[in-house]
């Protein structure tokens, strides 16, 4: 690693650190809730490496805890993480010169927070031949923070009284994620349709109502947005 590569790496890590303020409580909640949904501590910690995607990990816990079949869990998680394909497309032109092992590594680390840090950096400074070290620094900082906060949640969980309605943390966390995303009428319509359909079809077996409701909401938003543009 040359000096400028090291500088890029550290700059990437530094760019990510402020975002850890939001990530840390989220990781702890995940650790607590995953245990409450019947996962073993080993599975809880391993999932933070295997999936490395906060909201998808929470979704996984809820679906598995509710006894949803494997195909529904994988379909729901895939749907929720579709946005990562968008990040992949945005980043792809900047990585074409790199060897395959770099592409695999950076793809694994490509999350909401890392993409946000990368986008900010690309907007404010000129391209550098060592920019991939910046991506790696941001990615590893998030990865480390996520693993630590997950472990903290697992440790904390044993000390919380069982009478607390901890399961309510899940909808509250999702509300905190969704509300800032609703910036226009089409987005609001997608949320209202998804929520209404979810309540109407909640009786469907295998939690299939979730899939139906999510697709209905997406279709509603798409119809309005497609007409507007």
């Amino acid at each position: 690693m040359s000096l400028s590569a090291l500088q890029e790496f550290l700059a990437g890590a530094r760019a990510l650190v402020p975002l850890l303020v939001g990530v840390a409580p989220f990781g702890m909640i995940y650790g607590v809730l995953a245990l409450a949904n019947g996962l073993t501590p080993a599975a809880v910690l391993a999932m933070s490496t295997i999936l490395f995607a906060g909201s998808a990990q929470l979704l996984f816990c809820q679906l598995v805890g509710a006894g949803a079949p494997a195909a529904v869990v994988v379909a729901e998680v895939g749907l929720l993480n579709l946005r990562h394909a968008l990040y992949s497309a945005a980043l792809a032109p900047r990585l074409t010169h790199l060897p395959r092992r770099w592409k695999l590594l950076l793809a694994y680390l490509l999350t909401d927070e890392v993409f946000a840090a990368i986008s900010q950096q690309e907007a404010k400074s000129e391209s550098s031949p060592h920019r991939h070290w910046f991506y790696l620094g941001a990615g590893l900082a998030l990865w480390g923070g996520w693993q630590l906060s997950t472990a903290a949640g697992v440790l904390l969980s044993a000390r919380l009284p069982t009478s607390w309605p901890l399961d309510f943390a899940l909808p509250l966390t999702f509300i905190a994620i969704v509300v800032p995303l609703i910036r226009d009428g089409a987005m609001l319509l997608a949320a209202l349709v998804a929520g209404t359909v979810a309540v109407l079809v909640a009786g469907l077996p295998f939690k299939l109502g979730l899939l139906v409701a999510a697709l209905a909401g997406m279709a509603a938003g798409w119809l309005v947005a497609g007409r507007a543009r």
Partner: protein
Amino acid sequence: MNVWLIMVACGLVTFALRLSFIAAEGRVTFPRWFRLILPFVPVATLTALVAPELLLSQGALWLSWRNPRLVAGVIAVLIAAITRSVLWTLVGGFAVLALWSLMLG
């Protein structure tokens, strides 16, 4: 099925999505409908999860100010809109839930 197998399958799907266009090196582009629908995915998926948690009680619709989860959820939406903070949304939501359960319990 084994939780570990489902987890690995989810992990592979997620990794495949993140790698997709990086591996394709810009040779593939999105169809227009896909680009348009993508921004709605997180909002639709997560709202579909939240709404039944707030509005249903043992499978039945409970649309009333006496429903502590519904009241706490509505207040949490307001807090999230103002603060945009996961932490404050959690603190406020749990506080209202506790208060409501205490008052009506």
